[in-house]
């Protein structure tokens, strides 16, 4: 389990990117949702030991009383021995092949024996379906192939904690689907944190999710619990595009989307807003948008 207590981070320019974040993340997939600038990447970098938060503690260890617990802030190198990290933007040597790069990373992760490395690298390349292009240089990889390579390097050494930061941004639907299936496979027995602003990625994969905005955890729980809490508060109406401005003034719109040339709007309201709105079953996206709306109101 990964435990964060009152984790805050203030950058030298005074920006408070994280504000007393407290989370307990068990084994399995865990979604971290939030808009750009919410603090997700700062939080991921803090957990991945790339930066030290200015306050708070981060601990990683067995959820039962036995076994070693790592204080991530005091012993970052220890966590790195069991960490897999796929950052949002990772640089690689473009003229090096996938096989050579994975082999290099395996050495740096402590897989010393050449025989063990060979097995590790070959198994991972097959697992992420890059075996056929193992000798191709990384500069020739498509976006989806790069992300799959990224997951392969994150899996070297059978890590117990895997952090995946905005992994499906820029991927086409087929590549995204393939990637998410791969994540689902690996996410059963280890802690996998999926940080994203794409609600569908989280709703498909994660039994627990936290919504981060303005550096704070605004909501946390199982998607079904969060959806249940929003039941009866989400209303929908189909309007003409030209009416949108009026509805924005009169109601707090959660989301708008086009459908067959007309605009479908969702609003958050504890009681019937009238004006032809109908109640609908909330989805995780509605929960997400309503959480953001409430945090903006509170700010």
């Amino acid at each position, binding site marked *: 389990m990964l435990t964060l207590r009152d984790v805050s981070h203030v950058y030298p320019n005074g920006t408070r990117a994280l504000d007393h974040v407290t989370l307990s993340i068990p084994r399995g997939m865990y979604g971290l949702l939030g808009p750009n600038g919410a603090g997700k990447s700062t939080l991921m970098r803090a957990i991945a030991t790339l930066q030290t938060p200015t306050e708070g503690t981060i601990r990683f260890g067995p959820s039962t009383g036995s*076994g*070693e617990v790592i204080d991530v802030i005091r012993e970052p190198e220890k966590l790195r021995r069991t960490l897999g990290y796929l950052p949002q933007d990772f640089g690689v040597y473009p*003229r090096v092949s996938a096989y050579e790069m994975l082999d290099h990373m395996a050495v740096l992760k*402590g897989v010393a024996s050449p025989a063990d490395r060979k097995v590790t690298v070959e198994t991972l390349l097959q697992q992420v379906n890059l075996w056929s292009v193992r000798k191709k240089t990384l500069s020739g990889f498509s976006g989806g192939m790069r992300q799959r390579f990224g997951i392969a390097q994150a899996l070297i050494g059978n890590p117990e904690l895997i952090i995946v930061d905005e992994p499906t941004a820029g991927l086409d639907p087929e590549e995204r689907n393939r990637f998410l299936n791969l994540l689902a496979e690996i996410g059963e027995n280890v802690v996998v944190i999926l940080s994203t602003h794409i609600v569908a990625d989280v709703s498909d994969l994660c039994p627990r999710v936290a919504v981060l905005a303005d550096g704070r955890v605004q909501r946390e729980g199982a998607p079904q619990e969060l959806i249940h809490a929003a039941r009866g508060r989400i209303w929908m109406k189909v309007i003409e595009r030209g009416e949108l401005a009026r509805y924005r003034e009169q109601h707090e719109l959660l989301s708008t989307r086009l459908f067959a040339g007309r605009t479908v709007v969702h609003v958050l309201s504890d009681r019937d807003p009238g004006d032809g709105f109908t109640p609908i079953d909330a989805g995780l996206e509605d929960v997400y948008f309503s959480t953001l709306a409430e945090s903006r109101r509170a700010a």
Partner: protein
Amino acid sequence: MSEMTLHPAPRWRDVLVEQVRIVGLSLRPVLLVVIVVLAAFTFLIARDLLSGGEGFDSSGMFPTPLISFLFPFAIWLHEKPFGSSFLWIFPVERRRLALAKVFAGFVWLALALALFTAWLLALGALAGVGPAGTIMRIPYIGTIATYLFGSALLLGLRHPLKWVFGTAGLLLLVGGVSQALEHSYGMNTLLGSSRLFFATERLHSAWGSLPGPGQWILGTFLSLGAGLAALLAAASRHRERRRR
């Protein structure tokens, strides 16, 4: 998760060897360019020799210090010493990992210098120039020292190119102003000191002539020492800072 498996940290020797290997692999395109350039020079020099020319100009020095100053930029092109980088998530102490990469670059630089020397000796032999005359044209210590300074620049500054271009721009500006003022006032006159004038003359003559052994040892010690000190100071910026 009842028990956690912590894999051992990599051995320091493995890290060094692996950095040498990966830096070599990443420099393959640079190597191709160098081979093409040397092949072209070999052809031109050989053609000049065959047509009765000198072929091999035994005066002047090769600008290897400039090349070695820029060499770290090629090594670190795809890594970000500052900010989030793959390099920093491995279970290796960061300062040591950065220095391992610098060492890896030095290994390839030394190999390149050795091959370049061999090439030059071969050309010199063809042109009838002795080994001493050939080797004296390559400033080996200066080359190593500027490599250390270049690496220190990259590791120590978030925006090294800004500093490089800024400094070069400043020097050009000072040079331009100096030249412009020379006609009316003259920088030497403005500085107003004949002692400075004679001192720069002595410096110029010392620079242009071969040093004695004592001077050479002192110069080597100072330049390499300064380079190493700058590198270690720069690498210290990447030491893990842990909040207690």
